[in-house]
């Protein structure tokens, strides 16, 4: 997987305007999120539109993360990623932000595997 070098540093806002924006989000870097293979590429891919905060709020199974990518493409025109690249993104997301379950106690007997 290719690594992006310094793209954040040289980037300009997508919609450069004369007047200052109503709100200036703070800088965000991949290092703020759980380490793991493919973290940086996943980060830079997703933050093209929104903060990674919205991603890191979630805890989902791999198959539900897969649904999220499909939804991003269908609803928000995220570039369609398939094959190995999709696997890498899903590997990171489902490892860094997995579905949380209780080890014992009440359990959903029908929970999707």
């Amino acid at each position: 997987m290719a690594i992006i070098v310094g793209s954040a540093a040289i980037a300009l806002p997508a919609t450069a305007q004369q007047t200052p924006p109503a709100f200036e989000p703070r800088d965000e870097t991949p290092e703020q999120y759980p380490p793991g293979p493919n973290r940086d590429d996943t980060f830079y891919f997703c933050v093209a539109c929104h903060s990674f905060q919205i991603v890191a709020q979630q805890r989902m199974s791999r198959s539900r993360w897969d649904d999220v990518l499909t939804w991003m493409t269908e609803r928000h025109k995220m570039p369609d990623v398939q094959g190995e690249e999709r696997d890498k993104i899903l590997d990171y997301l489902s490892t860094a932000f997995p579905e949380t379950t209780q080890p014992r106690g009440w359990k959903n007997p029908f929970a999707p595997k």
Partner: protein
Amino acid sequence: MSDKRERTIVDLRMEDPERADATIFGRRTDVSRRGFMNGAGLAAMSAAVGGTIVHSATMPGGLIPAALAQDAKKAPEAAAAQGPQPFSFPGKDPGLSLLGERPLVAETPEHLLDDETTPLSKFFIRNNGQIPEKAAQPDAWELTIDGEVNSPLKITLGELKKRFATKSLYAVLECGGNGRSFYAPQARGNQWTNGGAGCAKWTGVSLAEVLKAAGPKASATYTAHYGADQHLSGDPKQVTLSRGVRLPKAMEPECLLVWAMNDAPLENIHGGPLRLLIPGWPGSVSHKWLTRITLRDKEHDGAGMTGFSYRVPINPMVPGGKGDPKNFKILESMPVRGIITNPANGTKLPAGTREIALRGAAWAGDDTVKAMHVSTDYGATWQQVELGNPRNKFDWQRWTARIKLPGDGYYEIWARATDSNGRMQPHAAPNWNPQGYGGNPLHRIAVLVG
């Protein structure tokens, strides 16, 4: 880049240079949820909450004490070295909880909803797209009413103010996803607790009067709303959000075209200079920066109307499952919800405290709240509280109570509202759905005496 299989993520990004050039903004999350404590016994739990769990006998298995849930929420991510960054926005209370910066989303912790009317500084923020620039000349803002009407209307805010009677009301505005964080497994989207809601005084003109001025045709059955906020991707062809309601709802006298909030001109961050207010229904139909309302002869199919968006299952589905879009219906009236606004979750009280004064609020979408109950023993016994009347339809109802405590220690206070149809808040978030709409379990706080 010719062979699809050889393309990297970076290449895909470069296909759209404008998007790829988008500045990398944001910050680390402060809303991480680390999940449950592994096999914690009562002793360990008591140690962790720093006091005796007084009504432990009736504390349901599988529920983590509210105090622990609160700590879990604050626990930093493994990789995040810096502490949570404070929320900062001009005119807003730094105590709001930031859920995301792009788009900007912040909720009001329950204890900051303690005012009878929520001040601007404490009102939650929800954006779906980019925040437009503040309008230089508010009265020149233009609204179009078209579609299934006899005489399409193009009218400025200045003309609206002159031509139609001004109307004010107190109304709850509540995000459709309020309470989403209570779902298990976690549902997708912003992880609201109960604070994607507030009650303000809204001033504007009747939506029904303005629609009537355009002469709705007999064929008109549904509205479609459009705002000026751009899609997050920066692509002008993409619609950020376009939702609508059945025409009879839009014609209710409490639906307003709003230009003032709490007697001040409507702030840009809340959709000023002109927004819709469709009280009782998910906030997303109350479009901000409103530019157009199109009447349709069928249900609206705009951005946010289809799939699982703002929809709930007709027949209950397996939590965590895929869901069949055909089994979903549009979420209209919001479900009943009651909150404790005083004391705050995590309050420490002096040893010997044997009575606490409680305050709170309750509301129920299109309905009213019939009763409010509190419990200090995990729901084994309930006490009915003093519940006020709404100032007008769609206002929230404030409540007060005094509760007695048998001794020092750790207590949870649970609060449960019952709506005018007799429906109570459940103990757990009901009717799981992929995007987590309708999560209205009762509110729990923890206090420590001594």
